[in-house]
């Protein structure tokens, strides 16, 4: 029943593109990055992500994004991007003293 493949030199096949996978494990939580899958179209990417990352019912929602679409901050710029926030300690609740007898604040 199996058709014979004629033997001939073939150019190496293109790889299935890489997609990043985000899972929301239950309502109320955010999507979390869990890893990546290879797939040749978005339907296949969702199926692959489902088969790989939600086998044990770990998800109510899946996002798949082509890895090439992800824009990441440059870790070398981490100092410029993130350090200034360290100085703005007034953004943190612990900066403020509230007398102990005042509740709910």
């Amino acid at each position, binding site marked *: 029943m199996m058709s014979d493949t004629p033997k001939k030199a073939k150019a190496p096949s293109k790889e299935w593109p890489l997609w990043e996978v985000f899972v929301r494990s239950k309502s109320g939580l955010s999507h979390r990055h869990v890893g990546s899958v290879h797939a040749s179209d978005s339907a*296949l990417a969702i*199926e692959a992500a489902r088969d790989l990352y939600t086998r044990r019912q770990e998800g109510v929602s899946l996002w798949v994004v082509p890895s090439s679409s992800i824009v990441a901050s440059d870790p070398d710029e981490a100092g410029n991007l993130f350090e200034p926030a360290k100085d703005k300690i007034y953004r943190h609740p612990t900066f403020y003293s509230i007398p102990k007898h005042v509740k709910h604040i």
Partner: protein
Amino acid sequence: MSAELKAIYAQYLGDNSLILGQRLSEWCGHSPALELDMSLSNLSLDLIGQAQLFLGYSAQLLGQDLDEDKLAFLRDVMDFKNVLLVEQPNGDFAHTVARQFFFSAFQSLELEALKSSTDSELAAIAAKASKEVAYHLRFARDWTIRLGDGTEESTRRMQTAIEDMWRFTDELFHMDDTHQALLADGVAPDLNTIRAQWDALVDEVLAEAKLTRPGPCRPIMGGREGHHSEHLGHILSEMQYLQRAYPGAQW
């Protein structure tokens, strides 16, 4: 409605799932991509689970100290009731996809109808299996289209595969006397209705896949009478070997 007739019907349902599940499990570790190893194993696991439920129910109806395993591992070919389609070899991946598409398109309609069976146990099993098979159909349909509308080679292989499987599709809708009796009692669905829906779905998918619907051909049937293709004997030899070699042992 006699328990025996229902038991036979449950075996038919279970045997379809079991033999197809067994075939799909042969791919594990050998399929074209790891991602496909995962998907095909999923399908196989779902089907084996269905087989356990349907055969378990059949055993319960028959009593006589039977169970799902005695039915699966100790019946010979003449007592298996599955359709011939599910016995066909995996072949190249196109044959696996064609077999799966034709079967899942049928099974999803069958299970949908079984959800309203007058037999509450069958209805319950169908309700659970329905969700799984919706996914099987989506998988098979998507791959039929990917391969049909992929490369020249994949189109050629897919066309050959659907033609090879076509002669086994008539049997899916065959209602023998047992089935007619079960239909009359509301236990089993009307396969003529299902056939019309199946035809429409197949036409739609084959068109999208740029494949040609095969012409009418002489149907090959006989599963419910225990007259199978040459493949079932080999499938059972492999599947049943341990239980046959060590009769009565516990595993």
